[in-house]
Every structure is written in C-alpha cells, then in structure tokens.
C-alpha cells in the first residue's frame, strides 16, 4: 500500500510505503501481508526520506503536526509522536512560536542512522531471499554491479 500525500503549505510531497522492514532493535523480520509499522514510525521515516532527498532542506520548516494530521488523516497525537521521535534524535527542532524546522546536519545524522541499520534492514533480508532462490554469491554480486549506476569521469 502506497500513499502519496501533498502538504499544501510547504508544497512538499510525502511518500511512504508500508513494505519497509521493521527498523530498529536488530529485528530481522520482513513485514508481510497486512503488515505495517506503527503509523508514527512511518511518518518519521517519511519525513527522514524527504530530508534525505533534499525535498526538506535544512533550516526549512516542516509542516506542523496539525497540517500533517489533517492531510494524512491521522490522529494529531500520532503525528506528534512521530515528529517527537525526530526531535529526540536531533533531526528536527522546534523554533518557539514558529514551528518545527529541519536541524542543521540532519541529513548526515539520518544517513548515519540508516547506515547502521542498513545491514539488518536490507542486506540480511536480501541474503535470506537469495538463499531461498538459490542465488549464488557470484550471481548476487553480478546483480549488484549491474544495478550500480555507471561510473563516469
């Protein structure tokens, strides 16, 4: 299930899919049918994705929890929870009277966090699936190289 939403005030597009592996705590289980991360987690990740993609630049304002909840049709308490996770991680910060802003160095912080999870979230499931399909290591590497963008000088 993919939802695409538009937040009018900032004009940003927030995408998220629900087939992401469950993050954190070294969980190595893949989500399957009917599965979803808690909504507040999905929201946090979606905002992180936007920051990574540059859609939400550092020191720019993030839609308020009010706007987010109305546009995404989720309870404000849930929206607040998702945003607070990012505040706690130093990815967003609150400017009094104005709202939530992307912190300086947020991109770096997110990359660092995701890198740490990269192995568990992507490599382990990749290897498990490869094993299921009897894809050899050589084939795997070939596929990865095939998928990499061409190096151009």
């Amino acid at each position, binding site marked *: 299930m993919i939802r695409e939403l538009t937040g009018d005030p900032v004009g940003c597009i927030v995408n998220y899919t629900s087939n992401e592996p*469950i993050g954190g705590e070294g*969980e*190595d*289980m*893949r*989500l*399957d*049918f*009917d*599965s*979803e*991360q*808690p*909504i*507040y987690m999905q929201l946090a990740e979606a905002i992180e994705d936007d920051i990574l993609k540059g859609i939400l630049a550092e020191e720019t304002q993030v839609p308020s929890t*009010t706007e987010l*909840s*109305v546009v*995404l*049709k*989720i*309870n*404000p*308490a*849930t929206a607040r*929870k998702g945003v607070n996770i990012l505040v706690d991680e130093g990815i967003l910060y609150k400017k009094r009277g104005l709202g939530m802003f992307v912190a300086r160095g947020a991109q770096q912080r997110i990359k660092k966090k995701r890198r740490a999870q990269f192995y568990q979230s992507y490599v382990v499931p990749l290897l498990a699936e490869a094993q299921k399909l009897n894809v050899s290591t050589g084939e795997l590497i070939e596929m990865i190289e095939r998928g990499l963008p061409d190096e151009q000088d």
Partner: protein
Amino acid sequence: MSRIELRGLSKRYGHNLALSEVDLALEGQKIYGLLGRNGAGKTTLLNLLTAKTHPTLGTITIDGEPVWENDAVLGRVFYMTEANLYPPSLRVREAFYWTVQFYSKFQMPYAEDLARRFELDIRKRVKELSTGYASIFKAILALASGAPILLFDEPVLGLDANHREMLYKEILANYIEEPKTVLISTHLIDEIADILEEVIILNRGRVMLHQPVEELLESAYAVSGEASKVDQYIQGKNYLSEERLQNFKSVIVLGGAVDRALAKSLDLEIGRPELQKLFIALTSS
C-alpha cells in the same frame, strides 16, 4: 475537560440483554472509536449516554453528574444519531436555525460553509435528503454545534468515497481547532483507524477492551508459514484467528513479545495486522 463515566451499566430490552456490566471511563479530549459488530450494543450505549433510554442497572455520569433528565449536562453533548429524528418537513436551514436555539455555541457560518463544501442544498427538506445527505446533514449539525462532546453513530452511512474522506478530515480539523471529546461509533474500521487515539471494542454487550490504538496494535502480530511449524510456534501462546490455505497457515497472536529466534528457526514470517483485521480476529467467536 469532560469525563464520561459508565459504571455497572446494563440494559435489557425484553428478553434481550443488550449491554451487560459495562464499566467505562472516558477522560480527556481525545478521538475515541467505539467498535463492535452489528448488534454488539454500540447504539444502545450511546442512547443510554444521552438519556434516550433508561438503564436497567448502573449509572451514567458526565463530569460526575447523572445524565438522566439533566439538561445542563446533555446540552454539552451533541449526538449524531443513526436514526433520523428530524421532522421530515423541516428544511435544512430551518434545522440549522433551531439548533442555534438549543446549542448556544452553534456556529452558523461554519455550518453554511460545510453545507456548501459538501454540496448540501440547505433549502431541501429533511425527507428529501438521500441516505448519504441525511448523514452529511446530521454530521454538519454535530460539527457546527460547538458542543464539547460529540458522539457520532455511523457517521459515514451512505456517503460516497469522496465525502467520506472529506468528513474524516473535517472531524479531524474540527478536533484540532478546538479540542473536544469525540466518540465515533462504527463498524467501518479500516478508514477510521488512523484518526482514533483510543479504541473501545464492544462484543455481545460487553466491553472487550479499551486501549490506546497504538498499544493495541503493538501488542498483536501475525505469524505465518507452513502449517505445522506455525502450530509449533503458537504452542502455549494466546492466539486469535487462523487463516489456512492448504499447507499455509497464518495466525494472529495477542500479547507477549515476538519469539524471533523460534520464528526464524521455524522459517516463519512475522507481520503486524491492521486494526480491522485485528478486530475481526478478536470478535469472531
């Protein structure tokens, strides 16, 4: 801050025990979901709460005061009923006018704006409204009423998809603009799941559970894989429904942490069911 409290509430209609020993306390300005199958007792509960009918046993109070024949307290509640209680020959705009008389905080401009956005012709008489527009009409009254407690009984009955989405957004926007206690009773769960903060599930006239939605969702997970292996996993665990397709089986487990090691060793997959799926699992006999 409104506190709704039901203690030891039971209601019998002839031979039918519609509600039995219901204990419920709703405190604070939240959006609550009252979920239950057809006949579970949701409407009965709402009717008792608004003194439409008298309990067989038990007490119902709002802010500590009993609701029966209590205009002061009942004036703080707007109840969007599933049934149509409005005089058939009354025009929508007359209904707006009279509701102002009975709910002093009713906001006419807001009501008119909502009517315009939902394309409700306020010159129409109540009897001329389709099912969907009857719901829209009543929902607008509720939203514009200015009451600190809003009860919605099947608010989206008859609404097309666009209007459903609009209504959920309006309820949210209204709630955000002015925090209040909102109780939505419905058996259409999947669309509403995300806007709820707490959920109350009624089953056969009893309160099955009352929890924050997130807490409930995080306490359940689905295990699936080869049937015999799933059976092994669920030994000694509290599981709900099972779905079976030849050798494939999927079971929803309630409570307890996921035994990842065991699941991995049995080559099982773990997922998290949506609220509606969980609800079905909980309320199938």
